[in-house]
């Protein structure tokens, strides 16, 4: 038993008992859908439907439906891809890295963050798939499968192939990790349920019996998976950044990308977790579990990663100047003052300047400010990827090929599709799965004060 100081701020407020925890969280799963939830689902499904039209148009007519051109071969597609992958980072970071660092406050948010990760990675994975000219064969040929073409393999030199491995590994590990964590909670719901619900949650809980040995195994598996997942937190976005860093295009060809991308990913991931959690705690009345303390801690992570990202931006500029490479220098001047200056300055404002507001305790403990800034950060991070991809490509080496990129309605539609999917999936998760890890939260109830136990 850990010795805890009575002066430590409680991680769960409201003097919750174990039973309260179970009731508060299982209530959402067991009760009737609320009007708010139904409305939310309707909006999400509507977005999904509208987005599907764009998706179908892309698959039916071709990539020409997007605004891409001879010079800008990637734009919204890969911007969205990197953005969603980045968002997906928070889940693993919270569940794996913070678990290893014994950060107990993570228990209230890890479940939702992991779910968010899974859905975000699915959204992200959509883009590499549909951005291909011929996805119907590309989806298969991008995998190193035995084939009848002689010894025809994939190109192990290609960062895109590394992406395939990185994303699929990350997705599988995150999914397993998330699901393992869900098992004890499913069992709790099963035990409280009757009828069909009992059968379904019974199946989902894999026959969990709550025995000490089961718990022990559960803990071990969690630790092992956390160990496996931790390198992934660093590797996924590192590998995504290789798509750019290994190329020859000014603005892409930069060794700083791996750490910069990882920091940016955590930055945007935490922002997205905040966005979702602030809404969830309000709607599901979970203010005692997701406290201001949680929000403040996450905001601190945002300040740190936001500052890392800011330093990375400045370093890039320094390197461009210091390198003496004219094309590289131009690429960066063009970011600031070229035709896409507004994207660059949006990125700078949203990512570097606005998170600094969290130095003020008042702001970082304010729900409203946090919510707004979390949205701002995600907008900024989208612009960061847009700036890197589009403004680097649109004016590279030969001025004869310099172009502008203008998105089409289909570009917007496909992005909407992923939003529709993400929120549909998240709402379904929030309704049918316990949004907070009951088992783990119970383990931290005592950590602040013995008095909380009645």
């Amino acid at each position, binding site marked *: 038993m850990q010795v805890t100081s009575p002066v430590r701020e409680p991680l769960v407020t409201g003097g919750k008992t174990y039973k309260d925890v179970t009731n508060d969280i299982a209530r959402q799963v067991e009760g009737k859908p609320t009007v708010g939830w139904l409305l939310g689902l309707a909006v999400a499904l509507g977005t999904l439907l509208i987005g599907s039209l764009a998706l179908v148009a892309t698959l039916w*007519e*071709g*990539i*020409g439906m997007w*605004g*891409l*051109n*001879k*010079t800008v*071969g*990637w734009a919204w597609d890969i911007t969205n891809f990197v953005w969603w992958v980045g968002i997906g980072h928070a889940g693993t970071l919270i569940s794996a890295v913070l678990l290893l660092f014994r950060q107990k406050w993570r228990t209230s948010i890890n479940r939702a963050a992991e779910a968010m990760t899974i859905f975000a990675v699915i959204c992200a994975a959509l883009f*590499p798939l549909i*951005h*291909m*000219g*011929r*996805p119907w*064969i*590309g989806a298969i*040929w*991008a995998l190193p499968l035995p084939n009848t073409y002689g010894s*025809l*393999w*994939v*190109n192990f*030199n*290609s*960062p*895109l*192939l590394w992406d*395939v491995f990185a994303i699929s590994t990350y997705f599988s590990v995150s999914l397993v990790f998330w699901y393992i964590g869900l098992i004890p909670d499913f069992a709790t719901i099963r035990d409280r349920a009757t009828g069909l619900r009992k059968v379904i949650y019974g199946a989902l809980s894999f026959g969990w019996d709550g025995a000490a040995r089961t718990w022990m195994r559960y803990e071990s598996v969690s630790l092992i998976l956390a160990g496996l997942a931790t390198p992934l937190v660093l590797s996924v976005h590192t590998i995504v950044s290789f*798509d750019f860093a*290994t*190329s*020859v*295009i000014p603005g892409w060809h930069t060794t700083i990308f791996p750490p910069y991308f990882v920091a940016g990913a955590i930055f945007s991931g935490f922002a997205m977790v905040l966005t979702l959690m602030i809404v969830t705690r309000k709607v599901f009345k979970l203010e005692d579990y997701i406290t201001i303390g949680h929000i403040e801690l996450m905001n601190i992570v945002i300040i740190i990663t936001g500052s890392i990202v800011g330093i990375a931006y400045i370093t890039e500029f320094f390197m461009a100047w210091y390198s003496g*490479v*004219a*094309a590289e220098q*131009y690429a960066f*001047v*063009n970011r600031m*003052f070229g035709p896409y200056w507004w994207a660059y300055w949006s990125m700078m404002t949203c990512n570097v300047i606005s998170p600094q507001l969290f130095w003020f305790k008042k702001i970082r403990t304010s729900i409203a400010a946090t919510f707004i800034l979390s949205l701002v950060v995600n907008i900024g991070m989208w612009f960061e990827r847009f700036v890197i991809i589009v403004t680097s*490509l649109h*004016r*590279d*080496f*030969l*001025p*004869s*090929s*310099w*172009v*502008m990129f203008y998105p089409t309605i289909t570009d917007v539609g496909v992005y909407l599709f992923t939003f529709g999917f993400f929120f549909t999936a998240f709402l379904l998760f929030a309704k049918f799965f316990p949004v907070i890890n009951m088992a783990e939260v119970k383990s931290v109830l005592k950590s602040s004060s013995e008095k909380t136990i009645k």
Partner: protein
Amino acid sequence: MKENKKTYWKGLEQLTNDPEFVKNADQEFPGFTAKKNQSEDGASSRRDFLKMMGFSVAAASLAACEAPVRKAIPYVNKPVDVNPSIPNYYASTFSNGGDYASVVVKTREGRPIKIDGNKLSPITQGGTNAIVEASVLSLYDKARLTGPQINGQAADWASLDAELSSKLAAAGSIKVVTNTVLSPSTERAINQMAERFGDVEQITYDPVSNYGITRASEMYYGTKVLPSYQFENAKVIVSFGADFLGSWISPIVFARQYSKGRKISKENPNMSRHFQFESNLSLTGANADYRTPITASQNGLAVLTLYNLIAQKAGASTAGANNLDLAHLKKAADELWANRGNTLVVSGSNDPNVQVVVHAINELLGNVGNTVDFENPVHYRKGDDSRMSQFVSELNAGRVGAVIFYNCNPVYDFGGGQALAEAISKAKVSVSTSEVKNETAALVQYLAPDHHYLESWNDFNPKKGMYSLSQPTISPLFNTRQAQESFLKWAGNSSSYYDFIREGWQPMFAGQQEMADFQSFWDSCLHDGVYQTTAMEEEATEALSPAGDISAAASAIGSSYKAQASGPELVVYTKVGIGSGTYANNPWLHEMPDPISKATWDNYLTVSQKWANDNGLSMKEGATQMATVTANGVSFAVPVLIQPGQAEGTFGLALGYGRTSAGRVADGLGVNAYALLNAGKGYVSYDITEGVEISLTGEAYRIAQTQTHQTYMGRDFVIQEATLGEYKEDASAGRYHPEIYKDGEFYKPSKISLWSGHKYSQHHWGLAIDMNSCIGCAACTVACQVENNVAVVGKQEVLNRREMAWIRIDRYYSSPEEATSNKELEQAADNPEVTFQPMMCQHCNNAPCETVCPVVATTHSSEGLNQMTYNRCIGTRYCANNCPYKVRRFNWFKYHDNKDFAGVNTAQNDDLGKMVLNPDVTVRARGVMEKCSMCVQRIQAGKLAAKREKRKVKDGDINVACAVACPTEALVFGDMNDPESRVSKMLKIEENSTEAIKEVNEERAYHVLEEINVSPNVWYFTKIRNKDKNEA
């Protein structure tokens, strides 16, 4: 196994052949007699029902699965010279009015698919231009007439001939309206009509007229000829608005000559100096060393001033008083005089008075006989503007009985064509032989469509003593008939035109000694496509006697030209791609970016940067405004294009657009600038100096340009150039030598590499591009399009920046001299220097595209090529993003067999158009990447041919389509492993090395973007300008 001879019986009954047994022997279950096929009442049994249902379902589903029938019909008797997959080549001649090129036609399985230049021709010397290259698609044009018509109704030839023979005989005065006819046999055929009908007159006009020169020759020398020019002999060239590299008279010939005078090497570091005084920035002006923008109304005075400057030096009398002070004009005069005898002055003006002065200048300079040759005149322009306009009024007055339009379209392309449109109905008989129902043909009673030139026999006499033939390369696709044969028919001569030509060539046969019989002579001429003889000359040309006095011309100039323009002036010009507009229904020509403006699918008003600034107009990504142009009483709305180099106060508008009856591709594109022209002054004037009004309407418009960024941003890693003086001092002048710092030392980028490199043990293909020779004419881009089945995507997709061209010509303007910031560097100078850089896949040895493809769809060949495997490509576009030269092209849509592109990509959508496709090159599917393959199909064919002959591939066996088409030999392709190859010698490749990265000793040769060490197999040679110092 032993044979078993034992017999077994089912029972005694079988052994005894019991009749009862035999009766039931064929039944499976004798005891249980099968149910009868038909039940008692005749209805189908259950089993039958199942059988029938099974059959029907199977049949129905089989029928549904049936693959579409694709016809591949084998020959019953194989023609002798048609071998599947083996191309045949036939020498022939392209001629469109007076536009001429001797060509070689490549046919595959009986279909012409590619036009190359004929190297045996002493005139065009293997050169082509964009129009010639693209003309093969016009053969497969859906707009072509499929048979004769009478009053709009399909008819047969017999009834048309019967009606016409009698009607023509009764018509009285017959006029045959033609563009320049280069064919002596055609003229004889017309004369045959004259013999039968009596009053037959041939009236010749040219859509783009050079009547001014022939008229001036008549005025000055007394003989109405168009001299031939020798640009290669000229050390100083001064051109007043003559776009001799792009559109003036015979640009293919001039480009070849000009480039000879511009090729330099260490051994021969001399090149011609070229001054250009012009209003619009023409292709020629873009290549000039010194270019001075002048207004159209200064044009005549500028020529006169030059005359006076020269006359002062020569001690001759000057003429006219109003001397202009133009930049570089005095310098031009000094240099002309210093090099007199070896200089050339030309003018694009159609004003005979100006041309008289030009003749006089050349006479004063002693150029006549050297660079200007009246003794060996050319026949490209025989048109007579004044006779033609007189004819229009005669027709209008009802004094013409019958009019035959021989392959011409004056309603569209003659200044004053509108009057003609109304007058045609006044002739009793009107006939057109056009291949398509063009603007003129739509108004006539009888359509007797001619063959396309690739289906025709014909002969040509482009220049004194020079002859060539054209021969059919495919049997006629439609029920058309050679126009000359029609003429003969109507004249009552039943011989075929083929026999008629042969008959006409008898004197030539008689005039030679080498061949003993006519057939051998004929075969040899037909094989070569060209023949040179003096046997046909009726009489020796008289010695020239210059009039000497130009005072009349000078005073005429003095009264019609002004030093200061009184208002806006419009200069109507001819585009390199569309030309006179005859071939406007050819999508390849529309998709070909204009060499200067890089605009496609449009004509537009070119305006100066100053005018645009004054009117608050700027262009971004082709977004501009419409303007209303009013001139000569005609008003148009046209989009505006800001053109650096455009003379202030002048505006340019191209001919060839605004077709209304050309076919699906051209109809409705742009405006018809011919409508602004007239022959009021006795010649068609292309300079409208009075009464021009131009105002912006404010209506937004987008011009589809393939290049919207004008300058090269001072990037010496892209464009490396120097002046001739600098080059003479240091052959590597203008070169940029990037160095990479590593471990305390500076290295050439190629010395530092991650890669172990390739070894090319056999061939190592390379391309050397001389930027000094490239004039930017874009013949290569069309040749590539034809050769490689490159899709046409249409205006909207060009606007979306998705053109598919595998080779493009980057055109860069210089920035203003004082430019330092990026913003200023982006602006083109008001009168910029222009650089052309052909850009295609650089076939990098360390190719950035190859490493990033996840599925190895783009790989390196053992001969140095970067190859695309379309079948393997999944379309991630990573290769295109990572290509520093941005030469990769993605199939954003399905461009073939897609009704959305049927209107523009005719070569890949309709059955007729598809006949032009090169069967050796895949038509790419949607979603795959493509790019220059260095004509790998030609390399393969060349290697196979050499293998069959059991020898090594020789230099020259294989050549890429762009290099073949190039009229200036700016592109040289070859094997860099072969020390004897032209490319090796040009680059001075150090040793017989099989290393991928070749060391070259030619100081001018450089790699674009050398510092990123992708190590291309394409080399560029620095651009050298013959300027005294670096100045714009």
